[in-house]
């Protein structure tokens, strides 16, 4: 606060004095922000992790603890591997959930896609052992209340995603194409929508399908790391 006492005696209209006050206040403010940031950082990180873990457990029935994994793209194509790490805020991290015996229940993945109004963020569970979707939960959406937000509450719609099979179609040396739905459902949006919320329900199905297609090959490529983390 040395600048401020200096200004008390000086002529307040001098440009240098104005400059000094502005810089002085700026520096003080910056320091204060830094202090609060440092003081709250640990709690915020913990809160974020707890929030995401909680969301992951709701889409992984039977899981009691989760570990985050990051894909380390060391080589070309799919020759990378999973690395367990604590960064649970990045969208590039997946969460693997384990039951009390330490067996892998499934992985929870965050995905985002365009809905009717704005971006919909959701988290869904996927079981690599059974190759099925385990369920999903909306994290953030601005869809129409009473219509679009029924994708969370309409049990007929939500139940379709419990045990929805994921198929990998081998296309030779290209990346395998992945689609949602069984033999009788040929395309992702053959998941039955909700009337009155057609766009939103399709958006949810498409978002999950696109995300599975993206992560499926990597999960398959290094499944053993995910499986053995708690055995």
């Amino acid at each position: 606060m040395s600048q401020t006492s200096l200004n008390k005696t000086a002529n307040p209209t001098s440009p240098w004095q104005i400059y000094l006050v502005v810089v002085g206040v700026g520096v003080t403010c910056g320091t204060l922000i830094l202090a609060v940031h440092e003081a709250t950082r640990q709690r915020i990180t913990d809160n974020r992790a707890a929030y995401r873990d909680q969301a992951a457990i709701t889409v992984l029935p039977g899981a009691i603890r989760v570990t985050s994994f990051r894909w380390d793209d060391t080589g070309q194509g799919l020759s990378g591997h999973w690395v367990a790490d604590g960064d649970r805020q990045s969208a590039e991290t997946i969460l693997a959930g384990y039951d009390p015996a330490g067996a892998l229940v499934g992985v929870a993945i965050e995905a985002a896609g365009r809905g009717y109004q704005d971006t919909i963020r959701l988290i869904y569970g996927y079981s690599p052992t059974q190759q099925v979707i385990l369920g999903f939960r909306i994290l953030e959406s601005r869809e129409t209340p009473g219509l679009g937000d029924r994708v969370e509450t309409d049990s007929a719609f939500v139940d379709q995603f419990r045990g929805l099979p994921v198929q990998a179609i081998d296309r030779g040396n290209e990346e395998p194409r992945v689609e949602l739905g069984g033999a009788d459902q040929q395309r992702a949006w053959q998941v039955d929508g909700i009337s009155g919320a057609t766009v939103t329900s399709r958006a949810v199905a498409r978002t999950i399908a696109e995300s599975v297609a993206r992560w499926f090959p990597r999960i398959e490529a290094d499944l053993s790391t995910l499986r053995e983390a708690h055995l």
Partner: protein
Amino acid sequence: MVEATNPESLWSIFIRASLVNNFVLAYFLGICPFLGVSGKLQTAGRMGLAVAFVMLIATVCGFAIERVLDWIDAPFLNLISLIAVIATTVQLIEMFVKKVSPTLFRALGIYLPLMTTNCAILGVALFQSNHGYGFLQAVVFGLGAGVGFWLALVLIAGLREKLDLVDPPDLVKGTALTLVLAGILSLCFMGFSGIGGGS
């Protein structure tokens, strides 16, 4: 926090920022000038343009500030640097308008310096970073949001000019009536939901 890339097309960003998620009518940003300077169509149009211009600059500044702060690893200074840059830009524009067109300067009155505290301007700078846009996408987003703001301001000004000809009951005169109008306009803009192409 910053996601890798957002694959959204430029056209879709523009439509969404200007119509579907109109800053005034869907996000409630920049309500103060919306209620305050919308009495006359001409003034409203010019004010809209001025704000749209600052919004575009703010988006570019916001984009740059975010990258710089990311680089020096100090994201907590984001808000304070943004507002400082916006305040400076508004000051410069105020000086420019005063010199070029004193009439416009008088017409805009208090609302010119108040642009510093216009939520739409800070909002556009903050939102572009939430969306994770690339540079070109951010510019289009700022442009679309500005056009949307201008459109809302001009629309409500036109309606209010017509309203001067009628004699409403004492109770609803003034802000309440303007808010009802804004509500109806917002209802109309909800009809734009869902357009702008798929992702």
